[in-house]
């Protein structure tokens, strides 16, 4: 299951008739078979060396792609992690640090990690830890640095994070340069040990490094793909698309951002060991800002978020740099001599590689932001027939049990499912909600109405933890939830939609709904990587459930499950948002103007669907302007005005209430 994104080959391909999954498998196998054969067939050490270097950068691009491409965190100091990995192995397998020999080291000598070396001044320790041991150790250590650095900074907004990472990327090489006792400063490490395999040293021949690089890249591609198409990867992409909506759908932002940062760092750490082992030296200059930018260029060029794309981008740019630029310059010189143009004969493209990088960044951003291999494949639009198919309504049979509550909470005489007391929210001097009290009985529909700016959405935001409440309490099934972060509120069973639709625009309908299930699924990073049968089963069940939920809306969403939501109509986006909220298996559903922007027929259809959901047992709180909908659906209505509750009662009572008429229509209407 490495493939999955090779649909770009589909058109005019000889493989067109073959099932997509098999096709990807054939392509992947061919690519790796050719890669394995390359050094055997080609036998040019310089070329093998160039490709081995390119593989190193492909591995780095894969790591940065996790951070920038999947989680959307722009890291401009990524090379710092590369440096930490490189120096970790560099110091553990060279003559750089040689402490005095003591008994302490004997165990390590027995393990083969250090050797006792006789010097005239006394015996010293020579570190010679195995490359194969150090690669995972360096990856783990670098991941730790990723956590250490990420913890305080990851709450910053994207562009600030970029600057902070840039600063971090500067600090690491400076520290390396300024601590010569460990790193040999600007002179660089020397005599880093080559890796050994069963007593045979890799030496300076490029071929063994090529194969290690190839294996590393293959492993990282597998890791990236498996993470990307898992609960973890979906949560990362949700954060990238809309952080607030991700949190409201149960994604623990801090934890997942840190995971992305640490994973990306670990990739760089592992690659750093290979890099320093191959060069057998390292200087601080190898890890500066230009390197971070080069890796970013590779990711942008190949396709931000696209696993195969960034590998292709990295390989192309590196090979361009080491093979073609020199040839190309010579051709230009020849052309210059031919036509007698002097400046053509002086062009050295190899030295203008950074200019080319700059041009690539700007050109890609202006004309092809999705890169060489786009991360999201496009799905053909529905056929005219499908588009004009008569609208069918789905049933609710598959959703039996939705909104069911624990027996302890759900009995006559129990406290209301949601009890809001004296809830107050202030924004500076403005009081958006003033001491609002509201109780929502289980299995009821409560409508919240009021003029614009009366605090309705603020009420939802305060209940779901998106804005902090200044005073008051919100008890859900008897438990206080004020002060809980949004993802915890969702986990408890309160899901919501947003007034101005906050979907994850570049993800598909299915992915949006699956993200809604985040809190109800369990696969972690390790589970996603190993893809054990239990993970497989969970994923398959989640997809089946997602289709059940989509089927509530009949043929509105089902045929469009693989479409990105930004291509959907407004009404369908509203439906996806409701489906996404339902996917979290909520006890209470908060709908913020669900019929806004819908025509009368669509409004009626949705109102019936909401009613159907309530009949299943789901408790619903509804913000709505269309009074017909409110009267039709609500058991109870509360009216907010200027942040205060001015009325509460049945729809019929509210319609007669003078306060309400005054708030909506003004004083004279109330008198008349």
């Amino acid at each position: 299951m490495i493939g999955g994104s090779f649909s770009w080959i589909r058109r005019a391909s000889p493989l067109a008739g073959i099932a997509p999954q098999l096709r990807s498998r054939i392509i992947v196998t061919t690519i790796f078979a050719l890669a394995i054969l390359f050094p055997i067939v080609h036998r040019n050490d310089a070329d093998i060396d160039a490709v081995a270097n390119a593989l190193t950068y492909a591995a780095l691009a894969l790591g940065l792609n996790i951070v920038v491409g999947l989680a959307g965190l722009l890291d401009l100091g990524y090379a710092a992690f590369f440096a930490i990995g490189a120096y970790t192995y560099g110091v553990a397998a060279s003559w750089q640090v040689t402490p005095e020999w003591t008994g302490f080291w004997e165990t390590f000598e027995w393990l083969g990690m250090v050797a006792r070396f006789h010097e005239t001044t006394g015996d010293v320790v020579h570190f010679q830890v195995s490359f194969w041991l150090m690669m995972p150790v360096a990856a783990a250590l670098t991941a730790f640095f990723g956590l250490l650095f990420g913890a305080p900074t990851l709450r910053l907004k994207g562009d600030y994070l970029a600057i902070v990472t840039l600063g971090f990327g500067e600090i690491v090489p400076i520290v390396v340069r300024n601590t010569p006792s460990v790193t040999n400063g600007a002179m660089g490490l020397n005599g880093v040990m080559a890796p050994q395999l069963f007593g045979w040293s890799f030496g300076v021949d490029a071929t063994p490094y090529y194969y290690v690089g190839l294996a590393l890249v293959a492993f990282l591609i597998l890791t990236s793909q498996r993470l990307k198409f898992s609960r973890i990867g979906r949560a990362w992409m949700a954060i990238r698309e809309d952080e607030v909506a991700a949190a409201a759908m149960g994604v623990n932002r801090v934890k997942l951002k840190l995971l992305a940062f640490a994973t990306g760092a670990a990739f760089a750490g592992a690659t750093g060991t290979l890099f320093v082992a191959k060069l057998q030296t390292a200087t601080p200059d190898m890890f500066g800002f230009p390197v971070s930018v080069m890796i970013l260029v590779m990711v942008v060029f190949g396709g931000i978020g696209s696993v195969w794309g960034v590998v292709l981008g990295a390989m192309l740019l590196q090979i361009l740099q080491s093979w073609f630029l020199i040839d190309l310059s010579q051709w230009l010189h020849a052309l210059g001599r031919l036509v007698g143009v002097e400046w053509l004969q002086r062009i050295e493209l190899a030295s203008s590689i950074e200019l080319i990088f700059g041009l690539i960044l700007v050109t890609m951003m202006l004309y092809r932001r999705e890169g060489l291999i786009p991360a999201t494949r496009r799905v053909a639009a529905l056929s005219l027939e499908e588009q004009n198919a008569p609208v069918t309504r789905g049933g609710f049979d598959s959703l039996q049990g939705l909104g069911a509550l624990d027996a302890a909470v759900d009995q006559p005489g129990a406290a209301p499912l949601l009890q809001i007391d004296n809830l107050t929210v202030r924004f500076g001097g403005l009081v958006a909600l003033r001491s609002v009290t509201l109780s929502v009985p289980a299995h009821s529909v409560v409508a919240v109405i009021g003029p614009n700016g009366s605090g309705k959405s603020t009420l939802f935001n305060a209940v779901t933890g998106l804005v902090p409440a200044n005073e008051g309490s919100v008890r859900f099934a008897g438990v206080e939830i004020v002060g809980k972060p949004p993802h915890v509120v969702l986990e408890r069973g309160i899901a919501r939609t947003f007034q101005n639709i906050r979907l994850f625009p570049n993800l598909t309908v299915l992915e949006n709904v699956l993200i809604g299930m985040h809190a109800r699924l369990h696969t972690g990073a390790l589970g996603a990587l190993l893809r054990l049968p239990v993970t497989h089963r969970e994923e398959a069940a989640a997809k089946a459930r997602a289709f059940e939920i989509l089927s509530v809306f009949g043929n509105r969403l089902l045929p469009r499950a693989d479409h990105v939501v930004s291509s959907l109509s407004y009404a369908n986006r509203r439906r996806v948002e409701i489906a996404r909220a339902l996917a979290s298996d909520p006890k209470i559903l908060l709908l913020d103007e669900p019929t806004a922007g819908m025509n009368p027929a669509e409004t009626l259809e949705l109102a019936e669907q909401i009613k159907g959901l309530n009949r299943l047992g789901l408790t619903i709180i509804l913000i709505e302007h269309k009074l017909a909908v409110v009267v039709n659906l609500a058991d109870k209505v509360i009216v907010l005005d200027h942040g205060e509750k001015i009325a509460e009662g049945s729809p019929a009572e509210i319609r007669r209430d003078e306060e309400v008429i005054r708030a909506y229509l003004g004083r004279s209407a109330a008198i008349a």
Partner: protein
Amino acid sequence: MTDTAVLLQQVINGLSLGAMYALLALGFTLVYGILELINFAHFNVFMVASFIGMWALEFLGVSGQSEVLTGMALFGTLAFAFAVTMLAAGVIGVAIERIALRPLRGVGGTAAMITTIGVSYILFNIILLTVGASSQNFPNPLPVVRWEIAGAVLQLREVLIWGITLALMLGLHLFVSRTRLGKAMRATAQDAEAARMMGVDVDRVIVTAFFLGSALAGAAALIFGLYYNFTSFIIGYTAGLRAFTAAVLGGIGSVTGAMVGGVLIGLIESLGGHFLAVRWADVIIFSILVLVLVFAPTGLFGRAAATRS
């Protein structure tokens, strides 16, 4: 030199550096205030401007540091050099906005910022490939006039830098607070959508911000040259990052903040470099950047922006 004299000397140096960083920081802050975009191209607009300044002075026949001008000749030369450099830098800034950034207006995420990194790289390499990697001797027509104050040396150069910086900042302040376009700028910074609906030509405001910011970077570039007597293709990166730190420290989006932050960073660089070690100066400055962003993202005078999503 006595300890106080050393301290005073470092303060004098720090104020001059700070004046330069403040001018450069204003460019970050003006653009950020309106577009919420960190403009990495600004780093190298500054660098390119230093070469333009050098060529402008050479065009007037000033070369090296030995040719000293006085009186009206000096005034005219400097006025010409500043006018040409600031105008050229401003035009470069506007060109960047029109060619590379305007098409991306409305595209969310990091696209615009990545583009500015690309533009920065292009500028950097154009100078590297045409002028070369060796640093250039920057012509300086200023006569050496020195005053001794409590053992520290104050030069005409310093006084001039402070004077020019203050004049430019006063000019910017008057522009932003007194003119119609300045008012439009403040409105756009508050709420671009509302400003557009009230008839403000937002594109014109953005172009103005780029022009002013880049022109001030041009002035900063000339000051750099006159202060250090050299320029090179690499100066944009370090100076730019320090100026950005200044803008963040002062509170990004705030004009006053950029000025105060610039002076503070200048003082931190000269005093920190003196009392600790020059090789750690950048670590100190970057640590300040990180600490301010993490613990006080509004800076000294700014609006809450860093964690807003």
